């Protein structure tokens, strides 16, 4: 076998190995991406749940009732001016 043929064979073998490597790498990256995407999904879910929870808890009507009933708060009357 000539030198040319040997190098050709070597090149073929090397690229074949590189191809295998590249495919594995691609799959690993894809797995990683899929995991990250699932995490993103999870976090968005949690975020929107928290946003909704927060707005329910902070609803004006709810705070108004709590302030009046539980904390016995009142609107300031105009006649109560402290001097």
């Amino acid at each position, binding site marked *: 076998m000539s030198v040319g043929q040997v190098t050709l064979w070597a090149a073929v073998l090397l690229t074949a190995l590189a191809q295998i490597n590249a495919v594995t790498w*691609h*799959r690993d990256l*894809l797995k990683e*991406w*899929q995991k990250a995407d699932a995490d993103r*999904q999870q976090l*968005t*879910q949690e975020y*929107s*749940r928290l*946003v*909704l929870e927060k*707005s*329910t808890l*902070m*609803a*004006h*009507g709810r705070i108004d009732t709590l302030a009046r009933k539980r904390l016995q708060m009142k*609107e300031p009357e*105009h*006649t*109560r*001016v*402290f*001097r």
Partner: protein
Amino acid sequence: MTTTEQHTGGMQRWRFALVLGVFVLLALVVAGRLVMLHTIDQPFLFEQGEKRTVRSEVQPASRGIITDRFGEPLAVSTPVKTLWVNPQQVDPAQLVSVGQKLGINGRELQRRIEKAKRQGRSFYYIKRQVEPELAGDVLSQKIAGLYADEDYRRFYPAAEVTAHTLGLVDIDGHGQEGLELSFDDYLSGKEGSRKVVKDLMGNVIKQLGVTSVAEPGSDLALTIDLRLQYLAYRELKAVVQSHKARAGSAVVLDAKSGEILALVSQPSYNPNNRAALQPENMRNRAIADLIEPGSTMKPFTVAAALEGGRYKPTSPINTAPGYVRIKNKTIRDHRDYGVLDLTGVITKSSNVGVSYLAREMGAETLWEFFGKAGIGRPGTLGFPGEAVGSMPYPEQMDDLRLSTVSFGYGLAVSPLQLAESYTSFVDGCRKHAALLLNQVGQQPCESVMSPKTARQTLDMLETVVSKKGTGQRAAVEGYRVGGKTGTAHKVGRSGYEDSEYTAVFAGLAPLTDPDLILVVVVDEPQGKEYYGGEVAAPVFSRIMEQALRLRQVIPDKPVSDQVLQVAGGAQ
């Protein structure tokens, strides 16, 4: 021996050649087939292979959030799962328990899937928009042929309070009503899609390329103040219930910029529960319904007279004997008020007085003035179903029509347009109502009257809320309030109905430097009370009082000082 040996030897060689030949032939056939598959059949096979493994996956884009002016969420999209099966791959008997978990009739589901299977279908929705936890629970059973897709569901935290303004989306996330409809393109993002290779279990094993990246929709910030919206809704609901009214609406505007701070309608609906929707509850009455404004138009007639220069707030007008006959119709006041000054015409809401002013000015002048104040114009919000007001042209106005127009009959406005026109009393310049935060102040205000006339009219409006006026129940302690009551007979099949009314109150506060404009409309109040001053004015007072406090507006009316002495604090 030798012959037989030779014979058997020849025989053996022949048989060897035959077997070898057969094998070579077989090898050739195989090779030939291989060549055929790789050359002639290749494109077809490749395509079929792709069809079975390569999938185009759609990635839904999340819809933009709608917030109030302070960033409080009014409409939020949350990720959910949509469950579907491939009836060809699934064992219908397994779905019975799935159905029960999702709250569907399991047997019924099994029957349907079996039917779909016989029909050769390969896609069937089990349930759409399932909460992620529940979907995860169902998926963990690892039933073959059961799949889940990403999806979004719209939630409205303030539910019925903001329902009419926001509208709602259908199950596919497209706007159906209200802002969700008019800003559908802006709110909805662009779906992404990518090409992937999937294995038999439906797992992605290779990504071939991204066709388009999902772009989330843009967010929308409204001028609405959720706190004011809540309290306006609460008070409106209370009055509609206590007077057994058919409907009602209230509009709160920022007096200086025209921003819509609250926009509520009754009856309402819960947009989070689409199953119970009733179309008649979905009308945004503050924007889509036209009302005859009745006496709430009188301030404009009087302002037009002041603007003409021939009248002053103190000019006397004789309204005796309390009625006037025009073209066989009698226009009446409640009673004979005798000689009133211009202010008194507003205070007592004298129909005779404004008719007199209108006939003095003429149709042309009044029409022009009302037009500048925005009466009879189309709405500018770009809201679906926005009402177009109506106003007769001067040529259409005979003496009778002119008189009725002067006290608000024979023309039509939406409650929002009425509020918008009342902004003209602030510095004499009419502001454009804005519902989106980035639209505020885009259009300059339109000059309607001189600031002096505007101020004089405001002072007149204050007398309406005083002890001798028709709207004293609209008063707010600590603030100078001005406004006008209105009671319009509703139009029925045969002209105006005797016992069906629309009660209206439109007003501003505090008068020293107006901050808020509020219009309250109660449609068909039942019972003994039906006047604007009896039904709408108390609601006005309650909403205004709380709204002014929430916005921390400084009281401008000195209250009779009852000083509480604090122990040790005496001078």
